[in-house]
């Protein structure tokens, strides 16, 4: 991303923006600045307000309160056809009565551009559909229609391109391919992309910045790696990847480290990674990502280096994924703990029923406020698809 000083001109700035439908609040007052030229993702489960937020930027939805600014200009009261913003719709919304060529030329023609031929040709080449110009949308596959939708929006050189779950209707393989394609196009044209998705993997692979939304509010905002490593709430910890969250009591607290007790054992974590009050006697949710944990058979417990956090338990399930093996461990500290082990040297004793010790570097531990639901943001099986 470019530095602030010269790029603030094209930022999308939402100030105190909210949307209520009758008594239902879709989006709570929200402040958000999307830097120019960035690939920004609004991530959340369905009904979290991410699409409403996007539609308010597009002008398709009037905000109940707040303002929308594009590059310093207040566009809150402008109708969508007067905003320098274009949208790629979830269902593409291609005009069925027009050819691909005319679909792509639509925005240019509406703005009175006389010779559209060259631009349309170039845009169709960019999305590799130059040979389909005279066909109708229904003659194209889902992935091709999606690319037409992108071309139709991009040809107008909007200040911001809004993408409303643009890959939702595609199958997994095509989705992966289109993710890379969109990322390539974004880098090529340098336009700000705001991408709405419920797929955390999609958000993390594509976006520079991710805003995780939940219940009409932004839970956390940051770069994908930062969000993943330092989740601020249980929702983010569970929604982005998988987290093991353990309820623990604070035993000791210093400027650098916290010592907590969970299930009879003691765990250490850096005070800097704790997002809650750290007074001894209080309680805390201690979290660690499954891939950070190593697994040792209970017989080898003596060989675990000093200074590592450790938890005992019993394997209840294991599944072989290829690059890794995933174990589920129940122990006194918590049940259903997940561990991903790289398949480098497989220990044949690590089978369901085996007594094991989970150990990890304390630096990988994070602390969250114990006042929130421990399973917030856990993906339901049907959502995971």
């Amino acid at each position, binding site marked *: 991303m470019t530095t602030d000083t010269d790029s603030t001109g094209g930022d999308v700035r939402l100030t105190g923006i909210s949307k209520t439908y009758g008594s239902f609040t879709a989006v709570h007052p929200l402040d958000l600045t999307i830097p120019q030229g960035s690939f920004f993702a609004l991530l959340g489960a369905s009904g979290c307000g991410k699409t409403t937020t996007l539609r308010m930027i597009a002008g398709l939805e009037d905000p109940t309160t707040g303002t929308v600014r594009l590059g310093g200009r207040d566009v809150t009261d402008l*109708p*969508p*056809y007067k905003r320098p*913003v274009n949208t790629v719709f979830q269902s593409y*919304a291609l*005009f069925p009565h027009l050819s691909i060529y005319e679909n792509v030329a*639509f925005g240019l023609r509406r703005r009175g551009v006389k010779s559209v031929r060259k631009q349309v040709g170039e845009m169709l080449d960019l999305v590799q559909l130059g040979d389909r110009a005279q066909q109708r949308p229904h003659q194209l596959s889902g992935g091709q229609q999606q690319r037409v939708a992108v071309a139709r*929006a991009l040809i107008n050189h909007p200040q911001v391109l809004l993408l409303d779950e643009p890959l939702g209707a595609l199958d997994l393989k095509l989705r992966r391919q289109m993710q890379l394609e969109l990322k390539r196009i974004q880098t090529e044209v340098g336009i700000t992309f705001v991408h709405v998705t419920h797929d955390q993997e999609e958000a993390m692979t594509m976006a520079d910045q991710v805003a995780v939304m939940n219940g009409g509010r932004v839970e956390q905002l940051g770069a994908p790696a930062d969000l993943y490593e330092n989740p601020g709430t249980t929702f983010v910890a569970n929604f982005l990847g998988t987290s093991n969250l353990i309820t623990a009591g604070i035993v000791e607290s210093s400027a650098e480290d916290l010592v907590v007790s969970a299930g009879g054992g003691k765990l250490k974590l850096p005070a800097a990674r704790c997002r809650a009050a750290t007074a001894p006697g209080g309680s805390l949710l201690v979290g660690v990502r499954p891939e950070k944990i190593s697994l040792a058979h209970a017989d080898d417990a003596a060989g675990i280096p000093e200074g590592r956090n450790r938890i005992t338990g019993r394997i209840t399930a294991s599944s072989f994924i290829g690059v890794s093996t995933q174990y589920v461990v129940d122990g006194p500290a918590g049940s259903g703990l997940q561990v991903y082990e790289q398949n480098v040297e497989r220990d044949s004793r690590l089978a369901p029923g085996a007594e094991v010790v989970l150990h990890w570097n304390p630096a990988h531990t994070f602390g969250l406020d114990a006042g929130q639901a421990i399973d917030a943001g856990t993906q339901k099986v049907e959502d995971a698809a």
Partner: protein
Amino acid sequence: MTGTATVEKDPPPLTTAPTADQVRKPPTRRRLVPYWLLLPGILWLVVFFALPLVYQASTSVQTGSLEQGFEVTWHFATYWDALAEYYPQYVRSLLYAGTATVLCLLLGYPLAYLIAFKAGRWRNLVLVLVIAPFFTSFLIRTLAWKTILADGGAVVGALDALHVLDVTDWLGWTQGDRVLATPMAVVCGLTYNFLPFMILPLYTSLERIDGRLHEAARDLYASPATTFRKVTFPLSMPGVVSGTLLTFIPASGDYVNAELLGSTDTKMVGNVIQSQFLRVLDYPTAAALSFILMAVVLIMVTVYIRRAGTEDLV
């Protein structure tokens, strides 16, 4: 290697293609079911459409009289005579029906648009109201227009006060301060009676338009007016075509409106056919007149559909 070789000698049966006797055809009886289901419809068409058509065609080339009986003499001159004598009525029919169709479209489109996009929870109620006139007899409704357009009535009085009648009189649509028994009365009746046939297809095709296309158009710099011109209207063309056909075709053959609301100067071809069949009892001329009307309408409809370019309609 020897181990794998032995395996290859005996390929698993999974890979074998299904042989001819495995691909069983459905029993003959089941294959015939669709045709049996078509039978009532075909019978209906043969008895009530094809046979009368053939009978009428043969009537149109007969000569004779009611007393001496009619005989097929292949007398095609009946067609030319009928056309020569009654072409004013044909022109009038097409003119009245065309005007009524245009009026129906102008009145029906905004209403269908409102029902489809703006009526919200009132949608079904408004649709019922559109169909409600059908609960009364066609004749009674047309007779009611006699009262509505009666001389010295409120409507005529209002039109007179607004000097509308001066204009329509000058155009030849009305006569003096009379509306009844003028072309305007007939066109009013036709418009009123066929309006639902315009609204319903229009509504159906408007209602099918994905609302997100409107959003996409607005997002792509189209003002509401342009969105209508470039997206909504083109996408509603199937409804426009079927609505105009459902209005124009029956209206051009109608005789009730001209009979009840018009005068001898507003006779349409339907009135001529009716009187030839039932009063003059000149069956060949009546049959020929019917065929000419059918041919004219068929040609016009074909040209119209070609021009409107709705390949999805047919």
